């Protein structure tokens, strides 16, 4: 029986992924931290399809794809509206009011998966899934413009087995804007001052010592680790065309099956690799 996620060894296991198609409204209405080049919708869609294709085709996950909702320009970033750990899913209350309705569709799909669902109803709480880093041993929750203390508390209440530490986040939309898990015990971290500072905080707060993989580009530090039974360690990371230096760092991971993924368009609206999927490990029913 896998208790507590079956321990670190089971970290990254996943059977299902929830994704959502991108609405055309994304190009103009999606929230973005800074103005910049317009999103090429067609290209964005292509990249996203590739991404979903990898999850479904290459990794064999059951991908549940929600339809786009034009009234929700940011709906493609499903990660922010649900945090799933083991059998429990916390539906968040996104920091951006315009995104709160994204939760509804997510709720339906998670219910269909028979997960224990917890909803964040406290009106003082905000939490974006992008601020939640689960390491397999504990949670780090970035306190950002999108996530507040109360949101973190509710997350801690939801996942009682784990320590939940808060990490102040500056100069980034989300905690996972500059870091992510690149392996069971490996934190990929960007090189910026903000990223390094956050890493220090995390190291101090943790009873566990993680290895770190420092990449030159903060954005590239957001990668997706999966542990697929037939394939072992799988890492989706940003393509060399986008971040060549960072890609070189990833390429040194010999034990990983590396899958470069381009995410140029969505990045314009602060999208990252982890943003676009909620990974779920649904233990096969006994």
């Amino acid at each position, binding site marked *: *029986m896998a*208790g*507590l996620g079956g*321990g670190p060894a089971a970290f990254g296991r996943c059977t299902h992924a929830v994704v959502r198609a991108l609405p055309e409204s994304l190009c103009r209405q999606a929230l973005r931290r800074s103005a910049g080049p317009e999103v090429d919708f067609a290209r964005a869609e292509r990249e996203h399809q590739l991404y979903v294709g990898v999850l479904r085709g290459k990794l064999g996950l059951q991908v549940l794809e929600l339809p786009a909702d034009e009234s929700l320009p940011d709906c493609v970033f499903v990660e922010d509206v649900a945090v799933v750990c*083991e*059998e*429990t899913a916390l539906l968040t209350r996104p920091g951006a009011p315009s995104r709160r309705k994204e939760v509804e569709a997510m709720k339906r799909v998670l219910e269909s998966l028979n997960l*224990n669902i917890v909803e964040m109803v406290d009106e003082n709480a905000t939490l974006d899934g992008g601020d939640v880093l689960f390491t397999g*041993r*504990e949670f780090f*929750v970035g306190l950002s413009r999108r996530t507040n*203390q109360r949101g*973190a*508390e509710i997350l*801690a*209440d939801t*996942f*009682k*087995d*784990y*320590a*939940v*530490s*808060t990490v102040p986040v500056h100069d980034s939309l989300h905690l996972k804007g500059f870091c992510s898990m690149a392996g069971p015990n490996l934190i990929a971290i960007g090189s910026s001052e903000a990223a390094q500072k956050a890493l*220090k905080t995390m*190291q*101090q*707060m*943790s*009873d566990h*010592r993680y290895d770190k993989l420092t990449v030159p580009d903060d954005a590239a530090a957001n990668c997706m680790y999966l542990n697929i039974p037939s394939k072992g360690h799988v890492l989706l990371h940003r393509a060399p065309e986008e971040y060549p230096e960072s890609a070189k760092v990833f390429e040194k991971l010999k034990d990983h099956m590396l899958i470069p993924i381009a995410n140029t368009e969505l990045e314009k609206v602060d999208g990252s690799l982890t943003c676009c999927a909620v990974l779920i490990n649904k233990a096969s029913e*006994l």
Partner: protein
Amino acid sequence: MLCLSVVTMTTEVGSETEVKKDSEQLGPDKAKDKPEEASETPENQKSKEASSEEAQDSSLPEPTSQSSPSSQKKQKASPESKGISRFLPPWLKKQKSYTLAEPKDEPKKKATGEEQVIEESESQTPEGVAQPRKSLEEAAENHHNAKADDKEKQSVSSAETPQLVKEDGKEMEVEKVAEKKEENEEEKEKRETKEVQTAEIKTDDIPQKSPKKIKTVQCKVMLLDGTEYSCDLEKRAKGQVLFDKVCEHLNLLEKDYFGLLFYETSEQKNWLDPSKEIKRQIRSLPWIFTFNVKFYPPDPSQLTEDITRYFLCLQLRQDIVSGRLPCSFVTHALLGSYTLQAELGDHDPEEHRRDYISEFQFAPNQTQEMEEKVAELHKTHRGLTPAQADSQFLENAKRLSMYGVDLHHAKDSEGVDIMLGVCANGLLIYKDRLRINRFAWPKILKISYKRSNFYIKVRPAELEQFESTIGFKLPNHRAAKRLWKVCVEHHTFFRLVSPEQPPKAKFLTLGSKFRYSGRTQAQTRQASNLIDRPAPYFERTSSKRVSRSLDGAPMGISDQSLRDFSATGGQAAGDKIIDTEAAGQANLKEGGREDGSPVKTPQLELTQDGKSLEEEITSILFSKEGFGASTRGPFAAASPGPAEGAAGEQTGASAAAAPPPQRHASRAEGPCTGVSNADKSSHETLDIVEEKKQAEFGIEETVVVDETNKGKMQVATDAGETCKVEHLSKKDSSSLPSDSSSSSSSSESEDEEVGEYQPHHRAIEEVIREEQEEEEDMKRKEHEEKIQHVEATPEGSKLNVPVEHTQVTAEDLVQKNTVTVATEEKKLSEEVKQDLGQEKEEEQLKLNGDVSHVDIDVAPQLICCSEPPVVKTEMVTISDATQRTEISTKEIPIVQTETKTITYESSQLDGSAGGDAGMLVSAQTITSESVSTTTTTHITKMVKGGVSETRIEKRIVITGDADIDHDEALAQAIKEAKEQHPDMSVTRVVVHKETEIAEEDEE
């Protein structure tokens, strides 16, 4: 007992001779004093008798209470008849009697001796905790050897472990012997106590003892499986005896992870200190304990025996059901299913119908859904043996984030409610459920508490230069102390290879002497590797018990009042003060910085503190009086359990009570004092004194300290110079005024209970290396060294800093420290002189405090060296910088008692040393007695070569119970002495601490 002699001299007094005198003086002086005391004494004693046991808890003088009524009567009856001559012989007699007695005991002692040695070596707390035992249990002869052994063992530490194991095996066998020992101890204690007070009595008592003795108390221990174990314990039994009995009953060998809890109130639980007598720790009468896991092994799979894991499982099930160990629904179900597997075996569809699960409790809020899930999971564990199921249970439970985290309510510096969690790896800070900070042990340089404040000094972060001190506010000082103790214990158990030596002769120290005395995890692991026995059979009982409330009966209702009292005292300062205090401390002690910002000049703060101090002092006094009154009520009533409990538990209360008496006494004496004063400033002094408590010009103050310490210490202080004995703290006494003293870093300890613990990071190297902080350490050391130099400079306030650093660094530095101290003292004294008046006093305190700190740190090691062979007597002399730094040991001819004498001599002594006799102009002796203290003041006026010298010697005998904060009382006494004679300088402080080995009287 603590005897404090404070010698105040205007000019000077002979140095060395005096020291000897002091040690001996106890007898003679008392005799002298007695006549005068006579009128007062009887009353006090009576009251003491009446209160008897209960009184012990409070600040009432232990010796008196201990000595049999008859002996007391004798004292009363023939106070005058006792001449010096009488007293002197008794000492000798004592020795003889001892020797005679010893042969009988020898066989036992030897047996015990071994054990003790072993234990001590194991625990490696030779001094503080171990000492009392030694003195009691070991024959004087063995003593020396034993100590030597200890030292060696200590130094070796890791190497020792093998021995430990062997010992383990022996332990069980030896237990019986141990009990016998204790009996012996009782006798000895009686003797010693008497010694302190009067030699004659001792002789008399010895015959009496043999018939008496065994008084037993029934103990109940709630076991983890919900059953109850009860046994009769000798009243004077130490915690270890009970613990060993329980473990034997449980057939548990890996017992170092466990402990006994008792409840002060329904919510306040304390760990029973194995090294102390139970009755000193638990005041209320039914002795009820719960057997619990104290240190949760991070990796239960490394436990050697299944039975140990079983008990750990039981504990965790309790923790889970009570909600202390939160877990998710899924985890509740999973753990519950393993519990079923362990206790019921494979799921049997026939036998295990639907509700079989409802009998068990798995979670605080158990739902039908959960039970179904449990049942479902139970089916999947088919084939697991109970031991395997337990192991699985533990493998999952250990990953829970709150596994093994001991939570304490607190507030941060901004008054925000937080929780402090102590665990194997360090200290965790939670706000609500969120972890907001974490301080791994390697990162913590010092842990201390003062009043209701708890402080940790943290290594500088990478880019920072200074350590920072972080303060937390706990609900009351008892809570602060409890947290501090838990931290000390956890640090020692999990981080160190072997326990640290407790600060030894602390009298000059501030703060609690408490140290963890058991085995560390490293030691217990090694020991358990050698366990060689077939796996013991044990029955797993049903978990129904889990639903049962395991909390002990609330004890000591009165405690609350006490607590409140103390709390209020502490709160007087207010939150703001707290902050300032923290800052002040940081500044003072560390040159510190709060939150990283270096503050190097504490002076401003100091003054502020000073003011607050006075205020506080006043308030404290009031409170004390009130306290005393309240306490007495119960005692007189001889009310049984609760009342006692309250009184007892509240050490603080007792401590508080103790000081006041002295003051009263002093007032009474005040007039007399006028007699002779030093040429210099006696006048000023007088005024001051009168305001506060009337000046006494007493010559000797003997502070009798507690049983806890079980040692007699004579402290000779120069009033003028300020050696303050701040004492530390042992228990909760909030009595000392000084919070305010935040100003004085040192002073912290004095007032209330203060405790400091500086983790020596001789921890397991591997661990350390693992930690990031390694690098930091290196840096830090360098930093520290620098700091030390700085410290050398003359600022009183900085003194502490050096010491601390040194400690951290290495033991080798001891010598250095000593030197530093001396210098510092000078500075201090200078400062003191400059400031006259109240502020001066306060500052002195501070200064003194600092000094004392130093002493504390340094002293222990020094003392070790100095111990004489047979007799457990230690004398350490720390001379001023002016004088050469010397540490000399002296033997004091008291055989039976465990005695430590620490002398502080100021530079002023020099003159006297050379001294011509001079002409005696006048001499006067005044004695006053209060509940827990006896103050004898001897004033001598001499004319030497045209210079008149007034010498005032005060002997203060503090008698009290384990819980009395002797250190504090001592500090108070010294402080008072100074206050009374501001113009004079303290030339010597001798603290004579005598451990009473047997406390006899009962009720």
